[in-house]
């Protein structure tokens, strides 16, 4: 997979291997639906006091969820627009408009958090020190978390470059 800027100046992941393209497509998953345990970390309640919790559940949480869902919708639409090359082992490409970068960072972060919490990954596993056992769901999830981290790094790099140019 190659990361660069497209002719439009947008982040572009090209020559994406079908296996990694599958991981990108898995980014369409709704963490609340797929990782019920892990997703509890995404919108942590502000405390334990019952009244406060009730207010938070009624007035704050729905808004946060709506915001998250609208960010995720952007990501889903970008993923649906991924292009596949021709040939025996067709590679994929994904262009992310600059104005969608924040939505991608939010969505990938939420998925990583939910996956990491669901599978109780250790710091060592998350810091790439051990290679995942891809014969298990846990190993595949770790590969997914690490791959999303890489995508985030690429997008953050472009945001930082923009900031540097702005200064």
């Amino acid at each position, binding site marked *: 997979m190659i990361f660069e800027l497209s002719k439009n100046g947008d982040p572009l992941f090209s020559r994406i291997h079908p296996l990694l393209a599958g991981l990108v497509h898995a980014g369409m*998953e709704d963490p609340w639906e797929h990782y019920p345990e892990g997703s509890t970390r995404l919108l942590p309640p502000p405390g334990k006091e019952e009244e406060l919790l009730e207010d938070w559940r009624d007035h704050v949480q729905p808004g946060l969820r709506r915001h998250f869902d609208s960010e995720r919708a*952007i990501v889903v*639409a970008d993923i649906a627009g991924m292009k596949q090359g021709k040939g025996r082992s067709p590679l994929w490409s994904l262009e992310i408009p600059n104005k969608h970068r924040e939505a991608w960072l939010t969505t990938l972060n939420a998925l990583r958090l939910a996956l990491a919490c669901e599978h109780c990954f250790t710091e060592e596993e998350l810091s790439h020190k*051990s290679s995942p056992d*891809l*014969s298990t769901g846990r190993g595949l999830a770790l590969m997914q978390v690490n791959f999303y981290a890489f995508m985030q790094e690429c997008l953050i790099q472009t945001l930082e470059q923009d900031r540097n140019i702005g200064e």
Partner: protein
Amino acid sequence: MEEARAILLRRYRFSENSLVVVWLTDSHGKVKTSVRSATKQGSPFAGRLELFTEAEIAFRPSRGAKGGGDLHTLSEVVVTGDPALPSTYLTLLSASYFAELCDLFTETMHPMPELFALLRRALVFLREKQPSGRAVEHFERELARLLGVQDPAIPSHRSLAAVAHKLPETRSRLLDQIERTKNPILSEDRIAEPRG
């Protein structure tokens, strides 16, 4: 020395350079083997211990086998000439799910040749075709039948879950991916319109 035809189910690190490799064999059931220096350059096993590979293997039984030790020493691997699985996420998820089920429902050194044949057929299928919900159901039904837990009144995965307490979580991800492949805009319907 013991010999068997085997499919590589799992592979994980044992020490810095060593691996534990778990096989499903035709004649010994599940076999766990240690492979020293497997990750070192020039290892005789280099390139032969890929997941879901089918091979003829030879292993030295653990000295403590009589006392219950089940980690044997792998001494030889001759890989069959089968082509590799298509390298897509969906195929990897399917193969992983089937392998996890085989791992979950087998005992070490307890022969289940029918299960070996079932996994072998499943991998042949995955080499040629895209995974489908029907293929997953078929595998689960056959597995339930082989284990003697099939109840025609309930779906096979429920029978299996009743025995194992919980099925691998890969199942729901796999079925979801299969569904998404059939209908790529499915998940978009459930959420709000994109902005911008």
